[in-house]
């Protein structure tokens, strides 16, 4: 079977379980983002795929071959480290050609591949520069080119963009995604930045406490989060308590939401609704009535904070559909049932 199969991988350090029975299938050519807060085991998982850590149990299978017992240097992968780890004593060209040199490629072959890669990363003619003379973004690209020198089967990146400033980071995200699509290489990126994951990934894997909480395409993760942790970690969300009343209707904060159904047998649950799905209008019987506590006008978006019986609800609108509200006013909050996601406990 083509692609990467992570088969019930567990890693423990003493009593601490860093990665807990993780299963994941990554089809060939997929861009995967491992996303989670620090200490959730995402880097450990990546290092096990790279062979830099040995799994306590489980197997890693690449294109049908069990690579778990293979040492790192026989796995045919490219990796970009958080520190980039460019060799300080080598020039840009020699850094990129390192893997070819190890394999005894001829000088001409090395030069040809280096030129190819430098063109690919938009740094033609940089081969003879010392790495110390490069800017942050340039070093980043050289590290990527070096990892791709042998056209590896797997491309692994550990928080690759964390050292760059915000603007450059956004540009590199787009560039990295375009590069991956052009090469069609299976790519796994570790990040704690959900925006980065949303920008680049085909498949976002949200991890917490060493387990996979949800693995799905970015828009599905955003629209249909599996649990409260995922909903809260990806973007901003309203987590509201929902109950089934005696008449069998689903209510949120005491107001019935027609059309919102709870799973059979569940009477109490959390509901996630994104701020941009919350509509504000005149108070009325069909809407939840609340009081505006704060309005944050950011120019591009307007965030309105509404308090309903001690619970705060955030609504986001564009200037075009600016709600006619002011701090202290009573408003009616409408929650479209199709946008409400009932979360598993």
């Amino acid at each position, binding site marked *: 079977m083509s692609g990467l199969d992570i088969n019930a991988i567990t890693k423990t350090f003493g009593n601490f379980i860093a990665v807990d029975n993780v299963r994941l299938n990554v089809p060939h050519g997929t861009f995967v983002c491992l996303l989670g807060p620090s200490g959730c085991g995402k880097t450990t998982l990546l290092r096990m795929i*790279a*062979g*830099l850590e040995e799994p306590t149990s489980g197997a890693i299978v690449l294109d049908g071959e069990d690579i778990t017992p293979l*040492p*790192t*240097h*026989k*796995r*045919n*992968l*490219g*990796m970009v*480290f*958080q*520190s980039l*780890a460019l*060799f*300080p*004593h*080598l020039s840009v060209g020699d850094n990129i050609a*390192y*893997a070819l040199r*190890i*394999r005894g490629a001829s000088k001409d072959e090395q030069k040809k591949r280096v030129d190819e890669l430098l063109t690919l990363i938009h740094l033609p003619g940089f081969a003879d520069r010392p790495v110390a003379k490069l800017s942050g973004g340039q070093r980043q690209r050289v590290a990527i080119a*070096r*990892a791709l*020198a*042998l056209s590896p089967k797997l491309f*692994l990146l550990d928080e690759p963009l964390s050292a760059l400033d915000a603007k450059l980071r956004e540009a590199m995200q787009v560039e990295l995604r375009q590069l991956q699509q052009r090469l069609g290489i299976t790519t796994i990126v570790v990040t704690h930045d959900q925006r980065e994951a949303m920008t680049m990934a085909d498949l976002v894997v949200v991890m917490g406490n060493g387990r996979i909480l949800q693995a799905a395409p970015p828009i599905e993760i955003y629209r249909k989060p599996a649990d409260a942790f995922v909903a809260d970690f990806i973007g901003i969300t309203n987590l509201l308590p929902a109950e089934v009343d005696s008449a069998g209707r689903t209510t949120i904060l005491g107001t019935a939401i027609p059309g919102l159904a709870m799973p059979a047998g569940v009477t109490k649950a959390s509901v996630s609704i994104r701020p941009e799905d919350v509509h504000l209008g005149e108070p009325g019987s069909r809407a939840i009535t609340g009081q505006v506590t704060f309005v944050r006008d950011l120019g591009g978006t307007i965030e309105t904070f509404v308090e309903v019986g001690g619970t705060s609800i955030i609504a986001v609108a564009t200037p075009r559909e600016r709600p006619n509200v002011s701090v202290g006013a009573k408003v009616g909050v409408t929650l479209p049932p199709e946008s409400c996601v009932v979360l598993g406990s």
Partner: protein
Amino acid sequence: MRREVPKSFADYTPLLFPGLMLVVFFVVPFSTMIAVSFFKRNPAGFYTPDFVVDNYARFLTTFFAGVLGFSLMLAVLVAVCCVCIAFPFTYLLTKRSRRVQTLWLVGLLSVLSLSEVIIGFAWSTLFSQTAGITNLFVALGLMDKPVALLPTFGAVLAGMVYQALPYTILVLYPALVRLDPTLLEAARTLGASPVKAFFNVVTPALRNTIVATLIMVFVFALGSYLLPQILGRPRHWTLSVLITDQAIYQSNMPFGAAMAVFLVLISLALVGLMLLVGRKENAL
């Protein structure tokens, strides 16, 4: 950092104390030595102020050239042995836990408290026929009968490497601790085996440190004058031994001083050459 050219005399005052120390403990004794090296020896007493080059002329014989060559060779060999042993050792040490590292470093520091005399006699016992290490080999069945391993060149080398090794490790340790471990991991993901990665990533990345350490151990070994006498034959004696002999036992201060000046000049030239070669290679 802001850098300004010092303007008034007051701006130079922080240099006063170190400058004074340098003059009192380096410039004055060294100048005295240079001056004495041109004085005339008085066989009846000490020396008389003069300006003669006899002391240097006497030096230009095959005997002293041989001793000088041997001293330099020995110092180079000690430096190379020390770095070859200390570099992998220190590298592996930095991979251990904090506790293990501290224990080893404390142990190494305690070796520094031993004087050259104690080190010399300890090794001479260890290499002796009656109580030496060969008795252990005989007991283990590796040898037929115990032999004396000294006085030999190997014994001199072993003693000097033992003496210089703690310094070597202590100089290499900070650089190796600071080395980014992902450099090695990066090399491994690019297809280098751990041993290969060590030699073409860790070693070149620390080239300047290694060169500096080699120079330090070389200079250190050049000054050793007790161990060659305790563990070696007269033909293993270094220039430092002869300098001591001339200055103290033969009362020929001017000749001893001339040899010392010559040794300093030769070692400076060698160190300069090494730095020059290093810089040229760096520029490539």
